[in-house]
């Protein structure tokens, strides 16, 4: 550092003691804000955990902030599981989820393959079509889409919902294209020189190499479908087609007098999300950032 006069030098001339104090205060402030915010975020969840473990009487008489007396009182969970039809909810969700994911991945990778590895006259048009479609707010277009699905006789059927989940997902295509950019085209060409057809290249080379992208899409889209409430509400109204979201939603009427049972239902729905999150954190973070920077 040369002898520069002025504000910078003046700052550097503070005693080492006061610099240390500033550092400590800064660090304290930093951690204090982090802890405060974490508490705010965790409070609603923790309170629900407490409530789910309380008996009806305990719930009515204690403050929401008070922990339950018996941490192993799982009675509410039993009632919620059976009375709320959660088994059927999870089963339906699992079915719709798995089929939708398979279709999404097949269609998405094929589209990405066609868009990235080929050059054809209307390529830019098609690309633009996909790009613009991501802007369309699907929430409100359902007003018209419902008419179409209804016309096809697919309302309140599994295929109807599956079609909607896999046919309108464009972000996955862009994630696949991003990944394909790191698969060298020379691999394709080598294979084709050896006599592989385009389909062969897709099936035997591209698809296996896209596994990380596929994993990412499975996780991100899987979570999205698990949490989806609007589409099942509109297109799977009957009780036998309940998915986990609509099943939990239907808790509100029958169980409104027993809030602790609703709390148990909420916890049951949250647990899979927590497990997946803890196990696959890195994938999830990666997927979110990729999807957003399309």
């Amino acid at each position, binding site marked *: 550092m040369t002898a520069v006069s002025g504000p*910078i030098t003046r700052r550097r001339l503070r005693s080492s003691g006061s610099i240390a104090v500033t550092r400590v205060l800064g660090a304290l402030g930093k951690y204090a804000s982090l802890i405060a915010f974490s508490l705010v975020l965790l409070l609603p969840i923790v309170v*629900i955990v407490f409530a789910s473990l309380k008996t009806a009487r305990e719930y009515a008489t204690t403050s929401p902030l008070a922990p339950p007396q018996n941490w192993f009182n799982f009675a509410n969970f039993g009632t919620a599981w059976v009375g709320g039809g959660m088994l059927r909810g999870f089963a339906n969700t699992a079915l719709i989820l798995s089929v939708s994911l398979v279709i999404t991945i097949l269609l998405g990778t094929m589209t990405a393959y066609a868009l990235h590895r080929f050059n054809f006259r209307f390529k830019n048009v098609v690309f633009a*079509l996909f790009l613009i*479609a991501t802007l369309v707010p699907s*929430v409100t*277009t359902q*007003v*018209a889409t419902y008419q179409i699905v209804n016309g096809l006789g697919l309302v309140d059927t599994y295929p109807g919902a599956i079609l909607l989940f896999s046919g309108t997902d464009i972000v996955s295509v862009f994630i696949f294209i991003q990944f394909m950019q790191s698969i060298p085209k020379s691999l394709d060409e080598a294979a084709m020189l050896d006599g592989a057809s385009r389909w062969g290249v897709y099936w035997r080379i591209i698809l296996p190499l896209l596994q990380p992208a596929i994993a990412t899409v499975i996780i991100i889209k899987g979570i999205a479908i698990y949490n989806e409430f609007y589409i099942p509400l509109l297109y799977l109204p009957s009780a036998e087609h309940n998915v986990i979201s609509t099943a939990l939603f239907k808790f509100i009427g029958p169980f409104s007098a027993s809030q602790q049972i609703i709390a148990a239902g909420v916890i049951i729905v949250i647990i899979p999300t927590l497990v997946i999150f803890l196990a696959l*954190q890195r994938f999830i973070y990666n997927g979110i950032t990729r999807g957003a920077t399309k």
Partner: protein
Amino acid sequence: MSEITGDAATGVQFDKVLSPTSARLRRRRWLRGPNGELRVTPLLFMAVPLVLLITLTYYPVANLFWYSFTDWDGIALGKNFIGLKNYVSLFTNPQYFQVFTVSLYYFVASFVQMALALYFATILSFSTRFRNLFKGIIFFPYLLNGVAIGLMFLFFFRPGGTLDATLAGLGFGPASSHPLWLGNPSWVNISMAGASVWRYTGLNFVLFLGAIQSIPDEIYEAADLDGANSWHKFRFIIVPGIKRIISLLFILAIAGSLSVFELPYIMTGGANGSSTFVITTVQQAFVFQRVGFASGMAVILLIVVLLVTFVQRRLVPDDDVALS
């Protein structure tokens, strides 16, 4: 042109196929591209997705425009053309216009989200203990099921519930002296917007974190050598680097504040003045059978989103600040 006329071993004659006047050659050029494959191959790969895209996205959007100029109820066989009546009604009838004021609450909430997210992303980008723990806690709410969150906050805001108990514990008086967080029309939107901030800050946070951490370390080191403190680093390195993410989040904020549906629908069903643009749209279409009117609302939302995106692309083009 005349190529080698044959392979000694097989006696194949090439020049017949390569003769410029051959009809077979012209057909081959039309069917097959430069590599010899069928021109239609890429379309085959994309056939199903394209059909779905058009059937489930573009065709409905076209229909939306059409329906919005009619008074269709979704069932009748005939649709009567009524011009711009639906649009006029939406903007002049206070009962409907209210949804725009409601969306303002969420719009403001988006800025609170962004500020919080940026603050914590910046803090956690530099050396902090337990970084992953805090990162996880902040992000986790975003992953939760909307219905679960709605029920959690019903619990949180009910009279005598979590919020009341906490405030009482902090010395703000007993539960009875607190307003009805969801029952009081003056408070309901603030409460909902608060729940929204709780839910979505994590997403903004992760995006900012990704952007900040993608700035190469050497730049930070160079800044350190030049004597920059944290504030300088923030202002001159981080802010330019995250311009793109901020503009992206800005679009999402505008489109998002109009698109709010889940939380208010689950918690109050739109009652008490908490009805949002989309809740009203859905109710008009599926409960009150006014598909024409609802389509008009849907068109408005679409136009707003397209407009904002267009403006953003102009103001912050994709190939902007390059830091490395």
